[in-house]
């Protein structure tokens, strides 16, 4: 009995050493997991805008009227620019709209004018589509954006 426990103790002592190989295995697996996760990580981004009526106004300065563009977001998801439909609901990147907006922006920049975009979203239009429009505006580097939802409840 005593002899047996002695043998057990000796075996335990022999296994007490730090095993480097399994540790490397585990570290490799954890690293692979994080490497894969790094590619699919979702990062929160933001589309900044300024609500009207709060910006400091300079009434004494003579201001040049900006080029106003009306962008419509219909309930169906169609996007219009000055009442002309450019992209249907299934075109998420809004390629035609973005290209048209970039051209208008470039034209206004050449003349030294500002571009003011008013988004008129129908009440039941999806917010996702409004964000698509804002994303296109960010792509075309248009900063002056105002919102109108519904018929007369502009904001």
């Amino acid at each position, binding site marked *: 009995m005593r002899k047996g426990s002695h043998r057990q103790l000796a075996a335990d002592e022999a296994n007490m050493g730090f095993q*480097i190989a399994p*540790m*490397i295995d585990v*570290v*490799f697996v*954890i*690293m692979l997991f*994080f*490497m894969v*996760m*790094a590619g*699919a*990580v*979702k*990062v*929160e*981004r*933001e*589309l*900044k*805008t*300024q*609500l009207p*009526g*709060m*910006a400091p106004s300079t009434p004494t300065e003579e201001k040049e009227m900006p080029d106003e563009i009306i962008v419509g*977001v219909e309930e169906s998801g169609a996007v219009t620019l000055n009442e002309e439909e450019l992209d249907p609901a299934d075109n998420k990147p809004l390629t035609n709209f973005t290209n048209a907006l970039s051209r208008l922006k470039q034209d206004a920049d050449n003349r030294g004018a500002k571009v003011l975009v008013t988004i008129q*979203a*129908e*009440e*039941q*239009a*999806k*917010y*996702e*589509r*409004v*964000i*698509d429009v*804002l*994303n*296109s505006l*960010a*792509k075309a580097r248009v900063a002056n954006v105002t*919102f109108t*939802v*519904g018929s007369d*409840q502009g*904001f």
Partner: protein
Amino acid sequence: MAGGGGGGDGEPEFQIAPMIDVLLVLLIFFMSITSAQVLQIDKDIKLPVATDAKKKDGKNQINEGAVNVAYKANKAAIKFGSLSWEDNLEGLVERLTEMKRNNPSYRVIIRGDRTVPAVEIQKVMNVIGQAGIDDISFSALNNDN
């Protein structure tokens, strides 16, 4: 010179210690870039995707608050902080006004579900405007994976 690679005539030995160092550094790197950007948003909200939106800078978090707009059973659920405000928008105006008064550079992020009707977001913008806050931003994701 006594250096890595063992003796001069024998085969170079595999050095386990530097390898572990490198592995751990890589591990920490990948852990930090994944965990630092874990989204802390309402699970009921599925944010829309905007690939060209700017990255959020984490420096200004003290000066900002988030209004979450979820959409459940054809009804918008508006949350600011941990409280629901959809039935008490005047209360939300007061709360935001107070925040703006205490911190003049206070800004609001609107985190709306992608299915929310635009009119609900307009209501939230209206509330934020009434509170005297002009600096707002819309939250979106960089990808939809």
